[in-house]
Protein backbone atom coordinates (compact mmCIF):
# COMPACT_ATOMS: atom_id res chain seq x y z
CA UNK A 1 0.00 0.00 0.00
CA UNK A 2 1.25 3.45 -0.87
CA UNK A 3 2.21 5.49 2.13
CA UNK A 4 0.46 8.85 2.19
CA UNK A 5 2.25 10.48 5.06
CA UNK A 6 5.72 10.80 6.49
CA UNK A 7 6.78 10.15 10.07
CA UNK A 8 6.05 13.04 12.40
CA UNK A 9 9.55 13.18 13.81
CA UNK A 10 12.52 11.50 12.25
CA UNK A 11 15.96 10.46 13.47
CA UNK A 12 17.20 13.62 11.75
CA UNK A 13 15.23 15.78 14.14
CA UNK A 14 16.78 13.99 17.07
CA UNK A 15 20.26 14.10 15.56
CA UNK A 16 19.85 17.81 14.98
CA UNK A 17 18.45 18.30 18.46
CA UNK A 18 15.27 19.63 16.89
CA UNK A 19 12.15 18.38 18.57
CA UNK A 20 10.00 21.05 16.94
CA UNK A 21 6.78 20.35 15.09
CA UNK A 22 7.56 19.90 11.46
CA UNK A 23 5.50 22.00 9.04
CA UNK A 24 2.77 19.94 7.40
CA UNK A 25 2.76 19.95 3.60
CA UNK A 26 0.03 18.42 1.47
CA UNK A 27 1.42 17.13 -1.84
CA UNK A 28 -1.10 16.65 -4.64
CA UNK A 29 0.35 14.86 -7.63
CA UNK A 30 -1.24 12.59 -10.20
CA UNK A 31 1.81 10.35 -10.59
CA UNK A 32 2.30 7.81 -7.75
CA UNK A 33 6.05 7.69 -8.40
CA UNK A 34 6.45 11.45 -8.31
CA UNK A 35 4.21 11.63 -5.27
CA UNK A 36 6.38 9.10 -3.45
CA UNK A 37 9.59 10.85 -4.53
CA UNK A 38 8.24 14.19 -3.29
CA UNK A 39 7.10 12.61 -0.03
CA UNK A 40 10.51 11.07 0.70
CA UNK A 41 12.47 14.18 -0.33
CA UNK A 42 10.32 16.69 1.54
CA UNK A 43 10.43 14.44 4.60
CA UNK A 44 14.24 14.46 4.40
CA UNK A 45 14.16 18.24 4.17
CA UNK A 46 12.20 18.61 7.40
CA UNK A 47 8.55 18.62 6.33
CA UNK A 48 5.74 16.44 7.59
CA UNK A 49 4.16 15.32 4.34
CA UNK A 50 0.64 14.23 3.41
CA UNK A 51 -0.11 13.12 -0.12
CA UNK A 52 -3.09 12.98 -2.44
CA UNK A 53 -3.48 11.81 -6.02
CA UNK A 54 -6.05 14.30 -7.25
CA UNK A 55 -8.01 17.35 -6.25
CA UNK A 56 -10.84 15.29 -4.76
CA UNK A 57 -8.53 13.35 -2.47
CA UNK A 58 -6.76 16.59 -1.56
CA UNK A 59 -10.04 18.12 -0.45
CA UNK A 60 -10.72 15.03 1.65
CA UNK A 61 -7.30 15.37 3.32
CA UNK A 62 -7.83 19.08 3.87
CA UNK A 63 -11.01 18.28 5.77
CA UNK A 64 -8.99 15.98 8.04
CA UNK A 65 -6.02 18.22 8.71
CA UNK A 66 -4.83 21.69 7.79
CA UNK A 67 -1.40 21.89 6.23
CA UNK A 68 0.81 24.97 6.30
CA UNK A 69 1.20 24.74 2.54
CA UNK A 70 -0.27 22.78 -0.35
CA UNK A 71 1.92 21.70 -3.28
CA UNK A 72 -0.01 20.66 -6.36
CA UNK A 73 0.86 19.29 -9.75
CA UNK A 74 -2.24 18.30 -11.60
CA UNK A 75 -0.88 18.39 -15.12
CA UNK A 76 -3.39 19.96 -17.44
CA UNK A 77 -6.29 19.49 -15.03
CA UNK A 78 -7.02 23.20 -14.76
CA UNK A 79 -10.47 22.52 -13.35
CA UNK A 80 -9.00 20.35 -10.60
CA UNK A 81 -6.56 23.09 -9.63
CA UNK A 82 -9.34 25.70 -9.72
CA UNK A 83 -11.56 23.52 -7.49
CA UNK A 84 -8.72 22.96 -5.04
CA UNK A 85 -7.94 26.68 -4.90
CA UNK A 86 -11.59 27.63 -4.51
CA UNK A 87 -12.07 25.11 -1.67
CA UNK A 88 -8.93 26.33 0.05
CA UNK A 89 -10.11 29.92 -0.06
CA UNK A 90 -13.72 29.23 0.89
CA UNK A 91 -12.75 27.49 4.15
CA UNK A 92 -11.85 30.03 6.86
CA UNK A 93 -9.28 27.62 8.28
CA UNK A 94 -7.37 27.38 5.00
CA UNK A 95 -8.16 30.80 3.53
CA UNK A 96 -4.56 31.94 3.80
CA UNK A 97 -2.87 28.58 3.21
CA UNK A 98 -0.31 29.11 0.42
CA UNK A 99 -0.68 27.01 -2.72
CA UNK A 100 2.48 26.11 -4.63
CA UNK A 101 1.78 25.02 -8.20
CA UNK A 102 4.35 22.88 -9.94
CA UNK A 103 3.71 24.00 -13.48
CA UNK A 104 4.09 21.20 -15.95
CA UNK A 105 1.25 22.54 -18.05
CA UNK A 106 2.12 23.91 -21.48
CA UNK A 107 3.37 27.47 -21.51
CA UNK A 108 0.09 28.65 -23.02
CA UNK A 109 -1.99 27.09 -20.23
CA UNK A 110 -4.12 29.49 -18.20
CA UNK A 111 -2.53 28.01 -15.08
CA UNK A 112 0.73 29.72 -15.92
CA UNK A 113 -1.11 33.03 -16.11
CA UNK A 114 -2.45 32.78 -12.59
CA UNK A 115 -1.19 35.63 -10.57
CA UNK A 116 -3.14 35.44 -7.36
CA UNK A 117 -2.01 36.25 -3.88
CA UNK A 118 -1.01 33.08 -2.07
CA UNK A 119 -0.31 31.13 -5.26
CA UNK A 120 3.34 30.45 -6.07
CA UNK A 121 4.46 29.00 -9.37
CA UNK A 122 7.41 26.68 -9.70
CA UNK A 123 7.94 25.73 -13.34
CA UNK A 124 9.00 22.10 -13.46
CA UNK A 125 12.09 23.07 -15.46
CA UNK A 126 13.36 25.05 -12.44
CA UNK A 127 14.01 21.77 -10.66
CA UNK A 128 13.49 20.36 -7.21
CA UNK A 129 15.96 22.76 -5.57
CA UNK A 130 13.72 25.69 -6.48
CA UNK A 131 10.64 23.91 -5.15
CA UNK A 132 12.37 23.23 -1.82
CA UNK A 133 13.48 26.87 -1.59
CA UNK A 134 9.95 28.10 -2.25
CA UNK A 135 8.53 25.71 0.35
CA UNK A 136 10.98 26.87 3.00
CA UNK A 137 10.25 30.53 2.19
CA UNK A 138 6.52 29.83 2.23
CA UNK A 139 6.36 28.01 5.57
CA UNK A 140 8.47 30.77 7.10
CA UNK A 141 6.03 33.43 5.87
CA UNK A 142 3.45 34.77 8.37
CA UNK A 143 0.48 33.45 6.37
CA UNK A 144 1.70 29.89 6.74
CA UNK A 145 2.21 30.05 10.52
CA UNK A 146 -0.42 28.24 12.50
Amino acid at each position, binding site marked *: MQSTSSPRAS*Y*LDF*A*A*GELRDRPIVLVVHV*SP*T*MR*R*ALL*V*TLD*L*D*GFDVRAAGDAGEALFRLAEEQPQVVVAELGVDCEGVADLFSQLRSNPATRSTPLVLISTAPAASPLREWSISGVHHVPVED*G*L*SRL*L*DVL*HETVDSPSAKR
Partner: protein
Amino acid sequence: MNSETVRAPATRDVVLDDVTRLLAVVQFLDDILDALELWQSAGVTDGRWVGEVWARRAAPWARMSLPFDVSHATDGWSLHAALLRWQRQIVEALVGRTDETIHALQNGPKPPTAHLRTPGPNGTLYAHDRIRASPSVLDPRQGR
Protein backbone atom coordinates in the same frame (compact mmCIF):
# COMPACT_ATOMS: atom_id res chain seq x y z
CA MET B 1 33.10 -7.71 29.28
CA ASN B 2 34.63 -5.08 31.48
CA SER B 3 31.57 -3.14 32.60
CA GLU B 4 33.62 -0.45 34.32
CA THR B 5 35.21 0.41 31.00
CA VAL B 6 31.85 0.49 29.24
CA ARG B 7 30.45 2.88 31.82
CA ALA B 8 33.45 5.16 31.78
CA PRO B 9 32.21 8.66 30.95
CA ALA B 10 34.91 9.23 28.37
CA THR B 11 33.97 6.06 26.50
CA ARG B 12 30.24 6.75 26.64
CA ASP B 13 30.37 10.45 25.85
CA VAL B 14 33.02 10.50 23.18
CA VAL B 15 33.15 7.11 21.53
CA LEU B 16 29.43 6.27 21.46
CA ASP B 17 28.50 9.78 20.44
CA ASP B 18 30.72 9.51 17.39
CA VAL B 19 29.27 6.11 16.53
CA THR B 20 25.73 7.46 16.79
CA ARG B 21 26.63 10.38 14.59
CA LEU B 22 28.13 8.14 11.91
CA LEU B 23 25.17 5.75 12.09
CA ALA B 24 22.83 8.68 11.56
CA VAL B 25 24.91 9.76 8.56
CA VAL B 26 24.67 6.24 7.12
CA GLN B 27 20.89 6.32 7.58
CA PHE B 28 20.66 9.78 6.04
CA LEU B 29 22.66 8.64 3.01
CA ASP B 30 20.39 5.62 2.72
CA ASP B 31 17.35 7.90 2.60
CA ILE B 32 19.02 10.20 0.06
CA LEU B 33 19.83 7.18 -2.12
CA ASP B 34 16.21 6.01 -1.89
CA ALA B 35 14.98 9.43 -2.92
CA LEU B 36 17.46 9.65 -5.80
CA GLU B 37 16.32 6.25 -7.08
CA LEU B 38 12.69 7.34 -6.90
CA TRP B 39 13.45 10.50 -8.87
CA GLN B 40 15.44 8.53 -11.42
CA SER B 41 12.57 6.08 -11.85
CA ALA B 42 10.38 9.09 -12.55
CA GLY B 43 12.86 10.31 -15.17
CA VAL B 44 14.28 13.13 -13.03
CA THR B 45 18.08 13.01 -12.90
CA ASP B 46 18.79 16.44 -11.41
CA GLY B 47 20.53 15.87 -8.07
CA ARG B 48 21.37 19.46 -7.13
CA TRP B 49 18.90 19.27 -4.27
CA VAL B 50 21.13 16.74 -2.46
CA GLY B 51 23.78 19.32 -1.53
CA GLU B 52 21.15 21.78 -0.34
CA VAL B 53 19.28 19.24 1.77
CA TRP B 54 22.59 18.03 3.22
CA ALA B 55 23.56 21.59 4.13
CA ARG B 56 20.19 22.31 5.74
CA ARG B 57 19.47 19.05 7.50
CA ALA B 58 22.67 17.08 8.10
CA ALA B 59 25.79 19.26 8.01
CA PRO B 60 25.11 20.99 11.36
CA TRP B 61 25.10 17.76 13.37
CA ALA B 62 27.10 15.47 11.08
CA ARG B 63 30.03 17.91 11.13
CA MET B 64 31.06 16.57 7.72
CA SER B 65 31.14 18.11 4.26
CA LEU B 66 30.09 16.22 1.20
CA PRO B 67 33.04 14.52 -0.51
CA PHE B 68 34.34 16.21 -3.63
CA ASP B 69 32.98 13.58 -5.99
CA VAL B 70 29.52 13.92 -4.44
CA SER B 71 29.40 17.70 -4.54
CA HIS B 72 30.84 17.78 -8.07
CA ALA B 73 28.88 14.91 -9.61
CA THR B 74 27.66 15.93 -13.03
CA ASP B 75 24.68 13.61 -13.35
CA GLY B 76 22.31 11.58 -11.23
CA TRP B 77 24.05 8.27 -11.76
CA SER B 78 27.52 9.47 -10.81
CA LEU B 79 26.01 11.24 -7.80
CA HIS B 80 24.32 8.01 -6.77
CA ALA B 81 27.56 6.04 -7.17
CA ALA B 82 29.58 8.63 -5.22
CA LEU B 83 27.08 8.64 -2.35
CA LEU B 84 27.11 4.87 -2.25
CA ARG B 85 30.94 4.82 -2.11
CA TRP B 86 30.97 7.34 0.72
CA GLN B 87 28.35 5.40 2.66
CA ARG B 88 30.39 2.20 2.28
CA GLN B 89 33.53 3.95 3.56
CA ILE B 90 31.69 5.10 6.66
CA VAL B 91 30.24 1.64 7.28
CA GLU B 92 33.68 0.09 6.89
CA ALA B 93 35.11 2.61 9.34
CA LEU B 94 32.31 1.84 11.79
CA VAL B 95 32.86 -1.90 11.50
CA GLY B 96 36.59 -1.45 12.05
CA ARG B 97 35.90 0.78 15.00
CA THR B 98 33.51 -1.69 16.57
CA ASP B 99 36.04 -4.49 16.35
CA GLU B 100 38.72 -2.33 17.90
CA THR B 101 36.46 -1.09 20.66
CA ILE B 102 35.34 -4.60 21.55
CA HIS B 103 38.96 -5.76 21.57
CA ALA B 104 39.97 -2.90 23.81
CA LEU B 105 37.08 -3.52 26.19
CA GLN B 106 37.59 -7.27 26.37
CA ASN B 107 41.37 -7.52 26.30
CA GLY B 108 42.55 -4.31 27.85
CA PRO B 109 45.31 -2.15 26.42
CA LYS B 110 46.51 -3.17 23.01
CA PRO B 111 50.03 -2.67 21.69
CA PRO B 112 50.50 0.21 19.24
CA THR B 113 49.89 -0.67 15.63
CA ALA B 114 51.59 0.99 12.70
CA HIS B 115 48.45 1.88 10.77
CA LEU B 116 46.87 3.68 13.71
CA ARG B 117 47.77 7.29 14.19
CA THR B 118 48.05 8.23 17.84
CA PRO B 119 48.21 6.09 20.95
CA GLY B 120 45.84 6.92 23.81
CA PRO B 121 46.74 6.79 27.49
CA ASN B 122 48.96 3.79 28.30
CA GLY B 123 49.67 3.29 24.64
CA THR B 124 46.12 2.02 23.96
CA LEU B 125 44.79 2.54 20.50
CA TYR B 126 41.05 2.59 20.27
CA ALA B 127 39.17 2.39 17.06
CA HIS B 128 38.05 6.01 17.22
CA ASP B 129 41.69 6.94 16.71
CA ARG B 130 41.61 4.95 13.52
CA ILE B 131 38.48 6.69 12.30
CA ARG B 132 39.99 10.04 13.10
CA ALA B 133 43.07 9.01 11.19
CA SER B 134 40.97 8.32 8.13
CA PRO B 135 40.48 11.73 6.49
CA SER B 136 38.44 10.35 3.64
CA VAL B 137 35.68 9.40 6.06
CA LEU B 138 35.46 12.20 8.57
CA ASP B 139 36.72 15.01 6.42
CA PRO B 140 36.22 14.02 2.82
CA ARG B 141 37.78 17.21 1.53
CA GLN B 142 41.18 16.11 2.77
CA GLY B 143 41.13 12.65 1.32
CA ARG B 144 40.34 13.39 -2.30
